[in-house]
């Protein structure tokens, strides 16, 4: 059975067809032979029985008249039946009255047990028949009939069946040889197609459909399966190809970046999204005097000044966590051991989904600038201290002159004449103006100095503070000051205070007929905030819009609009210092709006200044 399973379908089909044909024919042949044999025997028995009756009837007279010769003649008629071997007419005593035997056969009378019986004996079929006359038994006829006829017939039938079997088998073999292709061919084609696909991976082959039966459906499904695999294969190939191209593009881009980074005079680094540094350019290697491998990961921290390291790491981790740009000033150790100030900045590169793919950073040597800056800071501090002392020391005598000339004017009013009173008035007024000038000059000096305390402060809080200083002026002028929520900005608190106080103070001072209505707001513009202070005052003629920001520049000389002409110059200086801009838009007679911009990140402003200085 196992061997059968292993043979090809073709042979299997043949074997099945041949086996079933042979089995069917064999069964049918056997049935026919058996049935024919049964029918023949039955007919033979009837035939012989009828023959026996005729013979026995014809022998009645011979027995009655005891004439054996007549009986023998009657028996001799059996010659016509070649298969009758012997026949005897027996008397009542069982002795042979007459006998017949076939030529060449010397057989005795066959034995018979009783009359009217047909039985098969060893020699053949024995037929016994009682010979009677009018109900009286006269004797018995016994015949022996050989079975040669039956055997011959059976042999002939067997031969016929065998012949039919052979011819049928041959026919079956021929037919199945012709028809087995109907089943086996599509299967073979399927097999060869699968073999070809598995060997060549060519999914474009298709098996031709030759029938509408299950095999045809199998071919259809197989073809559909191949088509689906082919389309998937194509998509996969395209995707792989695109990926390959993308990888090559990325590699080219990397190469280009490396080339650029290596040829830059600046120190360049890149970091993985987790913040570990994975690349330093040649300038880094030259600066530190160690190989690239000794800088990557966290190893670069060994080259950061111990005083800067902790904050450096904190700021870097904060950027890595938030994705915000990294900006830091710190000292790095050069190969000769000298510490050099650097300005480092890094920006996150993001992919199409907005995820950080890498960090790119630069480190600019700002050592000279930093030293100059520190010198400048010291000089500034000294100047500031000097300005305070000078201002303070000047204020005292000025105040004495102003206040005491006023006292003299009041208390000794009757002692001096009209001229004297006027002159004392000049003294008092001059002293007051001088005091204001000294204050304003101090403020102007301070406006040019970057306060080291420039931090993120709430502009709203500073505005409230400035307004509380202006309470008196607001009350007197019946001014209304409204404002929107203001942002946090990076600026020295005193500087912003100065801006608000001067601009709102001006808005009150240069009012029209109506009580002043002043509105303060801020609007985001890129990385800057644009503040505005809007009033309904007398406004400024277009030709003076630049001039008003100059030192000691005033447009009015009447007492109504008193001032030193330094307020807007201070504002300009403060805004300049933080990299911003100040300007005015106005319709004379209708009001003016002063605008100024401030960066959200003062450090950015500072960094830009430092980098441009470092080239």
């Amino acid at each position: 059975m196992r061997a059968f399973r292993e043979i090809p379908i073709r042979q299997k089909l043949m074997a099945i067809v041949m086996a079933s044909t042979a089995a069917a024919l064999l069964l049918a042949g056997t049935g026919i032979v058996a049935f024919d044999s049964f029918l023949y025997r039955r007919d033979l028995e009837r035939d012989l029985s009828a023959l026996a009756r005729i013979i026995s009837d014809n022998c009645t007279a011979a027995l009655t008249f005891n004439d054996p010769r007549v009986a023998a003649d009657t028996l001799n008629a059996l010659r016509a039946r070649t298969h009758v071997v012997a026949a005897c007419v027996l008397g009542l005593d069982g002795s042979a009255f007459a006998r017949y035997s076939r030529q060449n056969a010397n057989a005795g009378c066959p034995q018979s047990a009783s009359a009217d019986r047909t039985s098969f004996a060893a020699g053949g079929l024995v037929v016994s028949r009682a010979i009677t006359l009018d109900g009286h038994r006269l004797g018995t006829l016994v015949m022996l009939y050989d079975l040669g006829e039956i055997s011959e017939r059976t042999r002939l039938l067997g031969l016929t069946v065998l012949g039919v079997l052979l011819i049928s088998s041959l026919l079956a073999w021929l037919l199945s040889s012709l028809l087995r292709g109907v089943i086996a061919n599509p299967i073979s084609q399927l097999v060869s197609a699968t073999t070809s696909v598995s060997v060549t991976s060519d999914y474009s082959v298709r098996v031709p459909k030759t029938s509408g039966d299950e095999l045809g459906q199998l071919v259809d499904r197989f073809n559909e399966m191949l088509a689906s695999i082919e389309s998937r294969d194509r998509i996969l190939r395209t995707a792989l190809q695109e990926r390959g191209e993308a990888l090559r593009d990325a590699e080219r881009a990397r190469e280009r970046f490396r080339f650029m980074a290596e040829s830059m005079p600046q120190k360049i680094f890149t970091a993985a999204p987790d913040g570990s540094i994975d690349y330093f350019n040649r300038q880094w290697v030259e600066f530190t005097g160690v190989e690239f491998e000794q800088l990557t990961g966290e190893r670069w921290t060994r080259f950061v000044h111990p005083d800067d390291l902790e904050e450096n790491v904190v700021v870097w981790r904060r950027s890595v966590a938030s994705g915000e740009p990294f900006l830091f000033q710190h000292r790095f150790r050069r190969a000769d051991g000298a510490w050099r100030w650097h300005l480092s900045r890094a920006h996150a590169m993001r992919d199409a989904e907005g995820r950080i793919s890498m960090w790119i950073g630069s480190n600019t040597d700002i050592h000279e600038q930093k030293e100059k800056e520190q010198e400048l800071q010291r000089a500034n501090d000294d100047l500031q201290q000097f300005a305070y002392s000078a201002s303070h020391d000047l204020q005292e005598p000025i105040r004495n002159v102003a206040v005491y000339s006023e006292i003299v004017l009041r208390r000794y009013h009757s002692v001096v004449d009209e001229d004297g009173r006027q002159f004392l008035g000049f003294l008092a007024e001059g002293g007051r103006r001088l005091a204001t000038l000294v204050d304003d000059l101090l403020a102007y000096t301070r406006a040019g100095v970057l306060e080291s305390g420039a931090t993120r402060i709430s502009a709203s809080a500073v505005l409230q503070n400035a307004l509380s200083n202006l309470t008196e002026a607001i009350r007197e002028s019946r001014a209304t000051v409204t404002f929107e929520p203001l942002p946090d900005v990076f600026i020295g608190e005193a500087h912003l205070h100065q801006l608000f106080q001067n601009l709102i103070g001006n808005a009150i001072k240069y009012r029209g007929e109506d009580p002043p209505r002043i509105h303060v707001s801020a609007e985001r513009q890129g990385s800057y905030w644009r503040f505005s202070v809007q009033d309904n005052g007398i406004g400024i003629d277009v030709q003076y819009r630049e001039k008003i920001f100059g030192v000691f520049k005033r447009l009015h000389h009447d007492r109504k609009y008193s001032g030193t002409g330094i307020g807007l110059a201070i504002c300009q200086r403060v805004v300049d210092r933080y990299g911003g801009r100040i300007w005015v838009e106005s319709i004379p007679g209708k009001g003016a709006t002063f605008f100024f911009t401030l960066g959200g990140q003062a450090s950015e402003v500072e960094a830009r200044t430092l980098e441009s200085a470092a080239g």
Partner: protein
Amino acid sequence: MNLLLAEDNLPDALLLKEAVAQEDLPVRFYVESDGEKAIEFIARAEQDPAAPSPHVALLDLNLPKVDGFDVLRRIRGSARFSAVPVLVVTSSDSPADRKTAAELGARYFRKPASYSDFLKIGPFLRSFLEEHGLL
């Protein structure tokens, strides 16, 4: 009520006295013309029960020898007088000075350059004293 005034500029001292007089405040002035003398006044008050004790102090900042903030610190460090209300009266407009004064629990009054403005220190002082339950 004893008022310790540390002021080296006589014209200012006179003006302050006048402002107080115009407001009709019930105070007796003890004027010290430098920081050292002001500190000595406090030390005397601490040691000698018979010496006058300050109930309120007006301090100029720019004083000879020892500056006003040192006098203020001496008062804040004193066992007896640490809670004495102090008003810094100065020509300085420095934010740093304003900040230091606030940190040491003192109020700040900037001397103006006009007579009428200067006299405003009278009502200012009255409300200051009222705030501290001295009036």
